[in-house]
């Protein structure tokens, strides 16, 4: 049986992913697909943004 992740876990992982994605944009890199997915962002749509 799998346990439903807690709100705290959700917030923590979202914040961690937001941090990592923001750091990547700062360094002109593309954020990791796993971080984008945690944030509810489709990595293909993100890649379509021209920078």
């Amino acid at each position, binding site marked *: 049986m799998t346990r439903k992740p807690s709100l705290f876990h*959700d917030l923590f992982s*979202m*914040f*961690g*992913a*937001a*941090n*990592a*994605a*923001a*750091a*990547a*944009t*700062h*360094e*002109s*890199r593309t954020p*990791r697909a*796993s971080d984008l997915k*945690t*944030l*509810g*962002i*489709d990595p293909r*749509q*993100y890649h*379509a*943004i*021209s*920078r």
Partner: protein
Amino acid sequence: MDTFMLLWQGLAVAVQPINLLYALVGVTLGTAVGVLPGIGPATTVALLLPVTYKLDPAGSLIMFAGIYYGGMYGGSTTSILLNTPGESASIVTALEGNKMAKAGRGGPALATAAIGSFVAGLIATIALAFLAPWVVKFALAFGPREYFALMVLAFVTVSAAFGDSALRGLTSLFIGLTLGIIGIDLQTGQARLSFGVPDLLDGVEVTTLAVAMFAIGETLFVAAQGKRAPETVEPVRGSLWMSARDWARSWKPWLRGTVIGFPIGAMPAGGAEIGTFFSYAAEKKLSKHPEEFGNGAIEGVAGPEAANNASAAGTLVPLLTLGLPTSATAAIMLAGFQQYGLQPGPLLFTSNPQLVWGLIASLLIANLMLIVLNLPLIGLWVKLLTIPKPWLYAGILLFATLGTIGANPSVFELGMLLAFGLLGYGLRLFHFPIAPVVVGLILGPMAEQQLRRALAISQGDVLVLFTSPISATLLALAALALIVPLILRARGKGEVLAAVAADND
């Protein structure tokens, strides 16, 4: 005196015609650089540092803050209409905003971004006004050891905690700290790292380093990316105004974005981008229509745009009250204060209340100017994108060089500008953050001075740093800020490897 009275007095300073003019110039420049991809508020403020050192401090700082706020506003326009964010804090806005523009809803997307920025800017500036005196009251109890601990916390968070690599961040920080050592030691009179060069005895000018890193290094990096694909502007079809449904779907994300962005901006090295990503994720989780995300959900524009403006105000809390820069633009603004001989921190609120409260009050006015400038003049801002990029980059390099030479007419200074510019370019090329270099140069000598004072008081006993509850807590937080991200990254790598293994199975 209560906050309302101080804010009222600040308004009296901010509405002086000359200060209104500085605010207008600031928000106009800020919006323009926000619109132009590759140039951010940090670059613009860095460029203006050498040319504003003879102007009135209050007016210049009002202009710098206007540039910061304006950059956050302007970035959304190109995100929505071109799918090309002018500012890294507007990347998330492009996800839903450009989809809305393609569906013929560019007007409401621009409107919710502008009104959301206004609402967030207003609430966050008021929050700044009310929070600042509390932080100042707390910070007045700080002695040398507490200040040293606070700076250690700032060093760790700026360089190691929030980047993708602690090693790269710390390397950048140590470059800055080393540059900060150059020159005559004020306590002993010894020349340090000057290698017998008389021009180095005065140390490295923060302005020169900031202009070199942010204007020259950044411009070389952007120019070296080569030609971009031709950009297509989505025309704004239909009304600019939002429907009743758009308002109903926007107001909660505006408020949530403000609540998310403000504290993240105030966190050391928080940066506006974290708030925008977090706000987007939160809006998608809380939305009644999560299926619309990715196809033009207005909440995905309203929340992140509010978050990035709120974070700009949040950044000013530690900058003004503690003298701690938490973002690249804040680091350059700190250099701006220092070029007038002003040191942001609790004492500035008592020694120069008119300047501080005038600056805070001017943010309210700048916010009002921005909404008037942005929505009706969208066509004009988009036209800025037709400026040929080589002209733009060459113009920045020329302006940076002339500005530095004007402020410090010396061939050696020009050589340092170019050398640091190339260093900045190299750092950007190899994904080293550049803000820690500037922060190291600014805060390094201050941290050293506070440490020496603390050790002089304790007669050399290092344990004195841990016997004050405040400094011990700050140092413990610094240790956590260094260790926890390392563990999280290691765990993240483990999870990725596990996921790869599971995929292979």
